[in-house]
């Protein structure tokens, strides 16, 4: 996985496209904000997601955040290992910490998402 090839949402989810399947997780910045993940709520396979709408929830000892769908589509796969042990997100959020694989809805694209350079610029602007 190349971070440069990924696309990023303002709400700190990454998206990696392969054909019409988009793998989704959260960025290292989001993980650093959260600290140790204690709980994760993800949709079921088959769920329909709309770009920009919440698809789940991630929680640490100190905070809880909504997770937002970066693209519109249908959930094809969910990282079931995270339900039992979400620590993979802390260990490697771009690898074993992936959350969903979404099949893009007809006509849906990643064009509205940021490039790595744009995302880094957003973080810099927010003072991180």
């Amino acid at each position: 996985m190349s971070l440069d090839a990924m696309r990023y949402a303002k709400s700190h989810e990454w998206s990696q496209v392969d054909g019409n399947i988009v793998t989704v997780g959260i960025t290292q910045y989001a993980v650093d904000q959260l600290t140790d993940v204690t709980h994760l709520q993800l949709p079921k396979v088959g769920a329909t997601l709309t770009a920009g709408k919440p698809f789940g929830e991630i929680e640490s000892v100190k905070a809880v955040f909504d997770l937002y769908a970066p693209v519109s589509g249908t959930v094809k796969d969910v990282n079931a290992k995270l339900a039992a042990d979400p620590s993979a997100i802390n260990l490697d959020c771009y690898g074993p910490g992936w959350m969903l694989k979404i099949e893009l809805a007809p006509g849906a694209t990643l064009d509205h998402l940021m490039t790595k350079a744009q995302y880094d610029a957003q973080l810099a602007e927010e003072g991180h």
Partner: protein
Amino acid sequence: MSALRTPLYDWHAEHKARLVPFGGWDMPVQYAGIVAEHKTVRTAAGLFDISHMARVSFGGPDALKLLEAVFSNSVAGMKDGQVRYGLVCNEAGGILDDILVYRWPYGFAAVVNAGNRVKILNWLETQRTGLNVEIKDQTFDTTMVAIQGPRSLELCAGMFEADPGGLKYYFATPTRYRDANCVVSRTGYTGEDGLEIMVPNALGAALWEDLIARGAVPCGLGARDTLRLEAGMPLYGHELSEEINPIQAGLAWAVKLEKGEFIGRDAIRKFAEEQHQSVRVGLKVDGKRAAREGSVLSGPDRELLGTVTSGSFCPWVDASLAMAYVPQAYSNPGAALDVDIRGTPTPATVVPLPFYKRKKG
């Protein structure tokens, strides 16, 4: 007003602590991570910078009289070196602060919550009228750290002139650290055995690094909060406030109604006979989602029962725990409630406090 910094602030910043505002201070909330720090305190020894806690000393012939008037627990019955937990209440019995009082051969001291330092100093100033007592705020003169966990005492062996292992729980002693006067106290706020240590600021960093070299692991206020929650200890501003009285907070043990007059006594006596007030309970929440402060509690008929005052996933007992105020009818262990977690009614059960109790060695 800019935030205050403890003498260890630079150390925290250099060691990548995440610093957050707390009680008027910039304090480390975590270093490596709250879960790991929490578990370290339960199994080994964690080290906390608690220099933000206010330290106030009392001298003069009327020091005892002033403390007996403002403190809910008995002071006269304390031995030299003894430490006692109690409350400072207003006339209506509302809690102004929860504090520790120390008795020394030459006077008294109190450790007060950081966020209440100015309020309590002002309160003492109004209550001292006509009394011959010298009150000194020593918060900025000393560095205060806590080493907490089952290995705390062995890690401190030989550090101080006096052996802290000889201290009984809730006793303290003046002693020496590197040729300077210091105080070592067998107290804490984590539910574990351990020490709280006060040294002159010039030795603060040396003490901190000495303890780390001996194996204590730096821990932030995040772990301190989850540790005290597991141990069922109230936190001012959450479980305790001027709208809450000691009886409903479950702190009747820290109120000595028969010790003589003190501020709030008559009001507290009435609360002790009251059957209809809400009381503090512990809740075990189903699942792993935290029922955070402000989460609403309801009963079987959807009736509103109260709100959560503290709630978190707690790493050691590995459960979502909370404290809340509920009507007495729902306060017995086993009572089933619903807590609204972000729109989802989630079952919760009243369980006895504390959630966690250490095995005494």
